[in-house]
């Protein structure tokens, strides 16, 4: 999509209230985006895929992880080759139902460095640049995809959480959801405040969206901090997806496990399990047409480090869940961990571009065409053959 289109749209939309502005183009209202649902989770901090889904069948694994994988014998087994970290055992029923899968040895195109911040931006921007340089639009791939999605509306996609989420940020209108409190201002006070904020180009839209949020959240419990407990977060996401939203995204941090990894990982996986189960429960039958895709900026070193943790690496892992998934399998080509198989003798060698997973999902679930996916949404991506993640 040409940049000038984005800019003109952005200019056009300034000042519109977010949900149902009559100023939106007719095509925006053309059709509902169907019943499929996609949840994109950004796992911040670089999740150690080798610890979450453990290649016990790889003969080199045990020596690389003498402490972290010491309990391998008792790990929940996914199959002959793979085992799950014990803290994620609560997901075993989901795996057995075929509603859980993993894509191992994946990475973004960003390979020239191991910076969290460049890596996360690259993951969310969807860039093809090896140095992590963003597309000129500096927006999120999921936002760009909305323009190519038949029937996408302003309320089709929602980011859940207090903070800005780059993956959904951009020229296409999206919803933003987080519990806030009601305003005690009089109508006149509201109007005056709206007027002074509407006059400032930087404040006009966020203020309007904040007002929208306040109006639509009556009776919701206000959290006492910037984040929601994970079960609650999962339920809220499901709630949004049971309304008009079909795409939801949120951030899930805390994966940077440089030391005493087991403690952190146990807590993180407990929370991940909670959020997935809460979404499954909240979505009810709609879970069957849902795909959850949790991706991280990069993986971690194949060897544990000197402080029973792992340092920044390259090849990582994505978590896939949902009734729409052809689950119960670990996707991708396993590069092996033996001598000569590691990248720079330290990292899991990536064998696939992690972007191909959301690309195939957007194509199958929302009719985004492959040409646009490989040029606009994920520049430079070669989608390759269908990894067959969906039923």
């Amino acid at each position, binding site marked *: 999509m040409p940049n000038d289109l984005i800019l003109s749209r952005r200019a056009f939309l300034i000042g519109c209230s977010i949900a149902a502005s009559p100023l939106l183009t007719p095509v925006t209202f053309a059709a509902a985006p169907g019943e499929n649902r996609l949840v994109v989770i950004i796992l911040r901090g670089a999740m150690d895929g080798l610890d979450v889904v453990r290649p016990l069948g790889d003969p080199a694994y045990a020596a690389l992880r003498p402490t972290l994988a010491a309990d391998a014998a008792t790990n929940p087994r996914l199959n002959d080759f793979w085992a799950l970290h014990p803290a994620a055992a609560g997901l075993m029923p989901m795996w057995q139902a075929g509603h859980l899968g993993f894509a191992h040895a994946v990475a973004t195109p960003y390979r020239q460095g191991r910076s969290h911040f460049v890596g996360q931006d690259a993951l969310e921007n969807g860039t093809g640049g090896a140095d992590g340089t963003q597309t000129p639009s500096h927006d999120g791939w999921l936002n760009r995809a909305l323009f190519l999605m038949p029937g996408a509306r302003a309320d089709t996609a929602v980011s859940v959480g207090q903070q800005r989420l780059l993956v959904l940020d951009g020229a296409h209108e999206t919803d933003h959801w987080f519990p806030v409190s009601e305003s005690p201002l009089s109508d006149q006070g509201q109007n005056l405040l709206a007027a002074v904020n509407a006059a400032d180009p930087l404040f006009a839209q966020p203020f309007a969206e904040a007002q929208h949020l306040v109006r639509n959240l009556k009776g919701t419990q206000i959290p006492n901090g910037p984040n929601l407990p994970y079960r609650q977060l999962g339920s809220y996401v499901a709630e949004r997806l049971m309304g008009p939203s079909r795409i939801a995204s949120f951030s899930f941090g805390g994966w940077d496990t440089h030391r005493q990894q087991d403690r*952190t990982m146990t807590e993180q996986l407990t929370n991940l399990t909670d959020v997935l189960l809460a979404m499954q429960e909240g979505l009810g039958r709609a879970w069957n047409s849902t795909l959850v895709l949790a991706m991280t900026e990069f993986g971690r070193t194949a060897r544990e480090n000197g402080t029973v943790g792992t340092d920044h690496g390259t090849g990582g892992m994505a978590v896939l869940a949902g009734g729409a998934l052809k689950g119960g399998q670990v996707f991708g080509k396993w590069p092996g961990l033996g001598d000569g198989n590691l990248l720079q003798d330290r990292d899991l060698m990536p064998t696939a571009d992690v972007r191909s997973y959301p690309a195939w999902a957007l194509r199958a679930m929302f009719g985004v065409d492959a040409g646009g996916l490989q040029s606009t949404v994920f520049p430079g991506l070669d989608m390759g053959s269908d990894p067959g993640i969906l039923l």
Partner: protein
Amino acid sequence: MEAPSLIEEIRFGYGPRAGTSLSPGGLEPERLLAQLTAPDDSAAVWSRPPLAVRFALQEQYKAEKMAADLLTGKQGKTAKAVKPPKVPEIATSAEMTKTPQMNAGADMAKTAEMAMTPDMHKGSPLMPRADDPSLTLGQRLKQMQFGDVESYIGRPAVTAVAFVERLVNMWSNRISISNASNNVGNFLQSFRDDAIRPNIAGRYADMLKAALWHPAMQVYLTQTDSIGPDSVVGKAKGKGLNENLAREFLELHSMGHGYTQTDVTEFAKLLSGMINDTNGARVVPRRAEPGKKKILGVTYGEGMNEINRLVENVAHRQETADAVAFFMARHFIADVPPPDLVQALSATYLKNDTELVPVYRTLLQHPSASDTNLQKVRAPHEYAVATLRLMGLNGLEQNMTGFPKDSLHVPAAMARMGQPPYRALRPDGWPEVADGWMTPPMMAARVDWAIDIARATGDRVEPAAMVDFALGDMATPLLQHAVAGAEQRWEGLAVLIASPEFSRR
């Protein structure tokens, strides 16, 4: 000391404080720079316990806990009996509850709670009872942390030398540590006071050294257990490196780019064995990687002096100068700062052996510094403090009708606006650009705060005069009209505080 002008207070301070006078006219660089050496009355009331006191309290706490554990024979149980159960500790890595350092996102619920305990001001005023012998040591440590946060909010709210506080906060965000991983809480304030504050008018190289050697930084970026694999301890126990601090020092604190993975790994070797505890800062030879390390083309040996030599060398690099210059220009002037300003700052920095005062002078002399077009959006801390100053408050007032228990709960409000005090979510600190503070929930929280403050205080003010005091000529006619047109005084004040103009600096 001569009073600052309005633009000096807004762009380089936290806005004007009720009850104080302003100098007429625009910005005068030397008047602002004089704040760096002026007597600071806020120090007497708001200073916090130094590092040695914190070490001592913690050592006492550990000893008390150990003795109690021995008596009961039930490890950990006693800690629960003496409330509160989880007092963060430092340099005792085995007790760290959570490793990282990289906590962006939705997982911070628990850690944020602590900063927002609703009755944290119970028993205030100030400097709660860190020295109250009737409390357990655990309680005293917790009180000390509450007092730290109170001073983070109250000191800039009352100070006459607000530029000093802005600089302390800017550099503490450039070289950031955070209590979000719940393990440096007892020492975070000391990082600001002992590593950053003494160096804001000194050399950046010295600030980098002080930061790198501060125990809180070493714990925060998981340096404390990094052991050279070929060191005595490394070989005996099969231990090894942890690259975290080495990487973030190069990426976040100094250069930003221009180094390789090899540089990071070699630097991690150079840092292995470094420690700063009750026995002082040093390198423990048994834990340090022996031999030469080639980092950014320079060869280093072992020990503290070699680490400091590396910091000096890195501080003097062009990449570091550019990164520091960009950070400062973006912090004070605009999210996209004028390139000529960045260039000028960088050149001044290198020409002056990383001295910061000349760099401030270059900044203050640039035309953008005195421009009355306010381009930056105040971070929640700056916004909350600006509000307190406008109303002549310090955050600890106990008679705020409409607030829970009549107390302001500024930390909780800041958290809702996106900035729980001392709990930056990522090792690169808080957002330095408007984007990070303008999500709908954060905006809603800003408006909420404005309304709550206005309702508690606004029946005593003349809103139109407040606009004039807060913004002078920088208030738009629309804002003046809106404030004057409100039904009640407090609503007029709410419109002012929740206006874009008041959120800018």
